[in-house]
């Protein structure tokens, strides 16, 4: 808090446990600092000085008083020292009326009369005592126990409990002759008298006897009172002195003379007045019980010191003269009050004790702690609770600390400024002046946050939803045992920490950020509210550099050898967003090794960034950046494409950090019993990519391998499906059925509208005047109830709304909050729970389309909100309850395509117990995989494929149709009727869901002599030769691969994803067959993404030559004297090169099927490249927008075999969620014809994209020939409604009168 300059909050936190922060912050010997872990870096944090700083900075008496519930039971406290005041403070907070009885005329105990003013000014103490008395604590002065009051007397006066905190105010005696002579003043008494101004001046010389704090305090006080010479005699050496070293040093500095190894023998007196002290020299003997060496007198060494005043300060004790007045209270063997060590209860019930009187003389903070514990005991005692339950002696937790970096910079502890020596000697002005503000902030910033949360409870204060309360904040982890049949690990990866590479200055310079931090900077909810500024000075950056592959593709210590797979695309996205944020003034440069935009549609994104938005892409791996002094700029040196050395300065540098598995997860994997690979990713095979080494445990997402969101989501569905196969038998066995209250029939009732206006924390209420909107809504016709909620979507508000609906018999509900797109279903559920039809609900979008976009204009935003709410109310007034039609779902599936994806899907579907039709247009199963030899990991694809074909063929649940073509498709989700022509025979398959796995194929290029020269083959054809074990390959001398043949070109602006890895794998295989062969791979960007980078590294180590060719220049293949000749432009050497291979392999593109019959039959879209387009790239990556149809494999996008298998399973998972429901509900927002008006024109029948309208058959009794609409097929788009020339169609929920009502309620259209 101090680091954040929130001093009031800091003081509030301190006073939760310490009522006297300014006092303790001055005088405490701070044992707490010993425990501070900062000492492992440099020195402990000055906790004590910081407490004092907070107390000095904010007036404690301006803190708000806590809420106190008053109690009747009176408590008496004897002694207004630190223990008594603390106990009073906490008891008063608990509501008990507390009276403190103090023997002296002042409060504070030893704090006031023991500690001299130059260490603790009385006004500081008085201020904090006032803080205690503000809580209602009363202090009665000059009232001593034994002299003026007795314990029994207090009890008779109605006090229910007494706390004895009388301190140690009696001096120990020297026990030497003439001790009582005039001029001998015991130490404690001396300090007390000077504090109470009974001694105002000293003359002559002073000798003090003792080595403790009292001796030093007495010496320094004597000096200030005017003594000519002050000496301290101590019988041991400085090393044994109990006084604090700082104090001794201060005393010496001020001119106090300290004599060691001397002991008093006798006070020399003259006429009853001390004139000198007879002393004896000592020497150190054997150690005593305390471990210190015992001082032994040196015989015959006596001598006399002349002096005027002698102050013995050899110890103090509890004044036990009160005992007679406290029957039942006993002393321990040190003559202190005996108590229970845990509860501080004395031998007499209800009487407690603490502080010096109980411990013997000790430090103030111990007395404070004792006072607090006693308050707990007394409070429990008065509540008749167990005093001991759950209490343990305080132990400092020394585990689960937040780890800290070893590279933290060492910072010296700040020292407080002090007053001049001249002033020090002259009077009692406070010597230490406290930390300066900048010192305190620096000191506080050194905190390592050992426990992560410092329990400041600021979060509780700001949580308006009251989700975080003191109670929920204190929640602890609990162990819950669950019985499960399968486990899915989705523990993910974390961003790589770049701070270990000092060459990037990440930890030191605020303008060097990680990509994740940059995402936050761009975010509207981020640290700068979505304004792109650089952290050091909050100025808009003009140039930003992204450095790729930070911690990835790097085998140096601490980094990861793999490609993280996601960084290229996200860097491009960040650069584009940054450009958008800066309104086009930003120069964005991405420094890369290879741009790996291999995902679906990612290449187009890259091209757009480069060509349309002008993001600069610079091929150069940057290994260090240099901060430019004081400008906040960062200098990057690189060599550009022309070979020129360039130096460029950037305002900000974004480190594109990779993904890494956390050590915590890796360690847990050991406990889970699953194998990890050498990078700590869960080990899986290419054929079962979500299955770990332990049966029943599956994995998905970035814990399996580094991957992006679409792949992770596909993985997660696949893992669910894999778990589903082994648990299919127990489906629905542990489910609970929800009780739905019966729907109340509200037809014919006048509208009773309830309006709920959501504040959404400050999201809406921060801009829009909610009270205004509430008042306005109350006056709308039909409205019977209006209220505002902090968060309308929270569970408790939902419950409340349900109750309000019932209580006010609401029959229409309007929620003015966020968008119906996300929250309508939630509130409809609330209506259902209240027994109201869910179509009697309307949302007024006053957040997304109002408060969030008109932040600069709260007045207009409020007016607009009123309008929006008014429109919603006008519409809701006209709502009628609607019904939904239920339909049965046919419990079988159709899989189209007999490749690996289709077969994996069919197999998985059958495992889950559903009947599956698998149709294939060829006369064999296997698809493209029939040509593939090994996966990149070296697994045998043919072996797997044969196993899979066998499994599919023999499965009872799967019916395979080869040589089949689809000729017609009828029906819709749940009830498809697909007609196929199989071996000239037509048949109709009825199925509930459809999975499209229709595949893709390799482009047969018309380039580079392909088809003209037998030495030119495609990548897949080479694979086939491996499958066929072609011996001729061994005789090859030189092989050249050309990458991106037909991919990443203007006609086909996508990456075919598999070719780089496949070529590298083939190259390695060729090297294996003939290690002497020269193998070249000509590439543009090499894209062996993720863990495949290992294969790339292996290939390079085997001598395979990778050459980056310039795709803007000619690359040709010719035949010259029977030699094949490949000519190309090398981008690195900037020269035209020529290779004469005897095998030229074209890594040819994957191209989609050209036949578009599936598109037509199932009304499913394709993207610009011809691959099927999923409903949502990230959220629904295997679904189509059309219900009940799913996609997987190459038909979706180019991908390797493991990803096809995963996607096949994922499609099943999504399909099964539908099938398992057995029935589905169609929406109630559908069109309905009025056959009385219908003119049978047929426009609706022809315009409907869903074939919902039809003519009533001519032989029907009612309305033959008129139009009718099948509510199951209708999607409620309203196309027919708008096109009906007779006005015979109504769209429920969006009917003409409802929309007109909205229009006419517009306040003159805004």
């Amino acid at each position, binding site marked *: 808090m101090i680091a954040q300059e929130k001093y009031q909050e800091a003081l509030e936190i301190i006073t939760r446990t310490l009522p006297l922060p300014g006092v303790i912050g001055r005088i405490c010997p701070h044992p707490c600092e010993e425990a501070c872990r900062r000492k492992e870096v440099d020195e402990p944090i000055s906790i004590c000085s910081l407490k004092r700083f907070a107390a000095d900075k904010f007036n404690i008496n301006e803190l708000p008083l806590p809420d106190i519930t008053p109690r009747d039971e009176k408590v008496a406290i004897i002694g207004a020292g630190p223990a008594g005041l603390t106990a009073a403070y906490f008891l008063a907070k608990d509501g008990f009326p507390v009276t403190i009885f103090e023997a002296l005329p002042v409060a504070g105990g030893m704090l006031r009369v023991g500690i001299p003013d130059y260490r603790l000014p009385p006004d500081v103490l008085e201020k904090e005592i006032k803080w205690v008395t503000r809580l209602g604590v009363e202090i009665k002065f000059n009232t001593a126990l034994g002299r003026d009051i007795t314990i029994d007397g207090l009890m008779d006066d109605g006090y229910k409990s007494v706390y004895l905190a009388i301190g140690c105010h009696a001096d120990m005696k020297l026990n030497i002759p003439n001790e009582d002579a005039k001029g001998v003043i015991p130490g404690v008494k001396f300090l007390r008298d000077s504090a109470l101004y009974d001694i105002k001046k000293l003359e002559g010389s002073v000798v003090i006897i003792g080595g403790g704090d009292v001796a030093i305090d007495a010496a320094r006080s004597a000096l200030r009172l005017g003594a000519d010479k002050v000496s301290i005699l101590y019988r041991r050496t400085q090393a044994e002195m109990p006084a604090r070293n700082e104090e001794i040093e201060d005393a010496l500095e001020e001119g106090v003379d300290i004599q060691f190894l001397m002991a008093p023998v006798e006070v020399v007196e003259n006429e009853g007045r001390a004139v000198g002290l007879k002393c004896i020299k000592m020497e150190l003997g054997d150690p005593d019980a305390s471990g210190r060496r015992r001082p032994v007198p040196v015989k015959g060494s006596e001598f006399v010191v002349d002096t005027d005043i002698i102050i013995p300060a050899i110890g103090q004790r509890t004044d036990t003269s009160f005992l007679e007045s406290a029957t039942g209270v006993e002393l321990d063997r040190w003559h202190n009050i005996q108590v229970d060590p845990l509860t501080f209860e004395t031998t007499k019930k209800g009487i407690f004790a603490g502080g010096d009187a109980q411990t013997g003389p000790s430090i103030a903070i111990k007395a404070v702690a004792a006072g607090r514990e006693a308050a707990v005991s007394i409070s429990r005692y008065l509540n008749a609770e167990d005093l001991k339950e759950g209490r343990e002696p305080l132990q400092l937790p020394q585990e689960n600390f937040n780890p800290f970096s070893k590279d933290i910079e060492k910072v010296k502890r700040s020292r407080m400024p002090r007053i001049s020596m001249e002033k020090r000697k002259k009077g009692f002005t406070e010597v230490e002046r406290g930390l300066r503000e900048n010192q305190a902030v620096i000191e506080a910033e050194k905190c390592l946050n050992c426990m992560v949360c410092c329990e400041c409870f600021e979060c509780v204060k700001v949580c308006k939803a009251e989700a975080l309360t003191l109670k929920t904040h204190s929640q602890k982890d609990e162990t819950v045992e669950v019985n499960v049949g399968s486990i899915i690990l989705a523990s993910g990866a974390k961003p790589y920490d770049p701070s270990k590479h000092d060459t990037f200055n990440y930890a030191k310079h605020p303008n060097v950020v990680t990509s994740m931090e940059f995402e936050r900077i761009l975010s*509207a909810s981020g640290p700068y*509210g*979505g304004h792109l500024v650089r952290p050091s000075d909050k100025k808009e950056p003009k140039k930003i550099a992204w450095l790729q592959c930070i911690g990835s593709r790097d085998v140096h210590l601490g980094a990861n050898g793999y490609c993280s797979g996601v960084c290229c695309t996200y860097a491009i996205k960040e650069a584009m967003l940054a450009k958008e944020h800066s309104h086009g003034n930003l120069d964005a440069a991405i420094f890369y090794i290879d741009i790996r935009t291999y995902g679906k549609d990612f290449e187009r994104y890259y091209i757009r960034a480069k060509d349309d938005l002008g993001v600069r892409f610079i091929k150069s791996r940057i290994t260090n950046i240099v901060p430019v002094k004081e400008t906040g700029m960062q200098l990057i040196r690189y060599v550009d494409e022309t070979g020129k050395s360039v130096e460029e300065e950037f305002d900000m540098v974004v480190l594109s950090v990779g993904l890494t598995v956390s050590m915590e997860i890796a360690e847990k994997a050991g406990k889970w019993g699953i194998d990890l690979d050498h990078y700590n990713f869960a080990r899986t095979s290419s054929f079962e990519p979500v299955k770990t080494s332990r049966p029943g445990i599956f994995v998905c997402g970035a814990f399996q391998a580094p991957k992006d969101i679409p792949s992770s989501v596909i993985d997660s569905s696949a893992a669910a499906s894999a778990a589903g196969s082994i648990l299919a038998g127990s489906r629905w066995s542990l489910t609970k059925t929800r009780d739905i209250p019966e729907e109340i029939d509200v037809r014919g009732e006048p509208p009773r509208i309830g309006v709920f206006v959501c504040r959404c924390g400050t999201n809406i209420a921060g801009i829009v005047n909610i009270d205004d909107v509430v008042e306005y809504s109350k006056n709308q016709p039909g409205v019977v109830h209006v209220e505002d909620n902090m968060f309308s979507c929270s569970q408790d508000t939902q419950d409340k709304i349900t109750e309000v609906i019932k209580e006010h018999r609401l029959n229409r509900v309007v929620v003015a909050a966020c*968008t*119906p*797109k*996300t929250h309508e279903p939630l509130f409809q559920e609330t209506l259902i729970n209240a027994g109201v039809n869910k179509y009697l609900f309307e949302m007024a*979008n006053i*957040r*997304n*389309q*109002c408060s*969030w*976009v*008109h*932040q*600069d*204009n709260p007045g*207009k*935003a409020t*007016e*607009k909100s009123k*309008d*929006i709410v008014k*429109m919603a109310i006008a519409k809701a007034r006209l709502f009628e309850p609607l019904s939904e039609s239920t339909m049965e779902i046919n419990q079988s599936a159709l899989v189209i395509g007999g490749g690996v994806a289709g077969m994996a899907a069919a197999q998985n579907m059958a495992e889950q117990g559903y009947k599956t039709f698998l149709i294939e247009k060829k006369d064999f199963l296997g698809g493209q995989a029939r040509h593939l030899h090994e996966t990149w990991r070296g697994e045998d694809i043919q072996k797997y494929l044969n196993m899979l074909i066998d499994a599919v063929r023999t499965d009872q649940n799967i019916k395979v149709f080869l040589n089949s073509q689809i000729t017609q498709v009828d029906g819709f989700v749940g009830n498809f009727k697909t007609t196929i022509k199989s071996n000239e025979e037509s048949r109709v398959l009825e199925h509930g869901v459809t999975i499209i796995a229709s595949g893709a194929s390799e482009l047969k290029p018309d380039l580079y002599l392909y088809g003209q020269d037998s030495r030119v083959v495609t990548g897949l054809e080479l694979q086939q030769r491996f499958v066929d074990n072609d011996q001729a390959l061994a005789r090859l001398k030189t092989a050249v691969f050309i990458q991106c043949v037909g991919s990443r070109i203007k006609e086909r602006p996508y990456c075919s994803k598999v070719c780089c890895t496949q070529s590298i794998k083939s190259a390695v295989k060729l090297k294996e067959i003939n290690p002497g062969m020269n193998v070249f791979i000509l590439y543009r960007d090499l894209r062996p993404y993720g863990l495949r980078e290992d294969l790339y590294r292996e290939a390079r180590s085997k001598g395979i030559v990778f050459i980056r060719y310039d795709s803007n220049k000619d690359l040709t293949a010719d035949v010259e004297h029977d030699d094949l000749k490949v000519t190309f432009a090398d981008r690195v050497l900037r020269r035209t090169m020529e290779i004469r291979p005897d095998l030229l392999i074209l890594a040819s593109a994957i191209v989609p099927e050209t036949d578009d019959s599936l598109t037509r039959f199932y009304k499913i879209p394709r993207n610009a490249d011809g691959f099927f387009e999923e409903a949502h790239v990230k959220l629904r990556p295997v679904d189509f927008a059309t219900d009940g149809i799913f996609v997987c494999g190459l038909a979706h996008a180019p991908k390797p075999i493991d990803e096809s298998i995963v996607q096949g399973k994922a499609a099943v998972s999504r399909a099964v969620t539908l099938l398992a429901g057995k029935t589905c509900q169609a929406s109630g*927002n559908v069109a309905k014809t009025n056959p009385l008006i219908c003119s049978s024109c047929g426009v609706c029948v022809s*315009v409907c994209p869903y074939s919902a309208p039809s003519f009533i058959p001519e032989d029907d009794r009612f309305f033959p020939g008129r139009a009718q609409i099948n509510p199951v097929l209708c999607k*409620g*788009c*309203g*196309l027919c*409604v*708008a*096109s009906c020339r007779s006005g015979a169609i109504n*769209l429920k*929920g*969006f009917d*003409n009168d409802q*929309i*007109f009502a*909205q*229009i*006419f309620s*517009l306040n*003159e*259209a*805004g």
Partner: protein
Amino acid sequence: MSDWEPKIVSFLCNWCSYGAADLAGVSRMEYPPNIRVIRIPCTGRMSPKFILAVFMQGADGVWVSG
């Protein structure tokens, strides 16, 4: 006329433009407050009568997006 602001009523398709308007909010894109949105299930639902009604109500412009 310099401070004159047209009153605009928009009909937005639930599936695309209405979602886009929501997204503009998520991204905190500021725009003038003199626009009112009517959500329709599809621009196919749009009827010329709605446009006439809006002008009758005093609007200066109608925006149909989908």
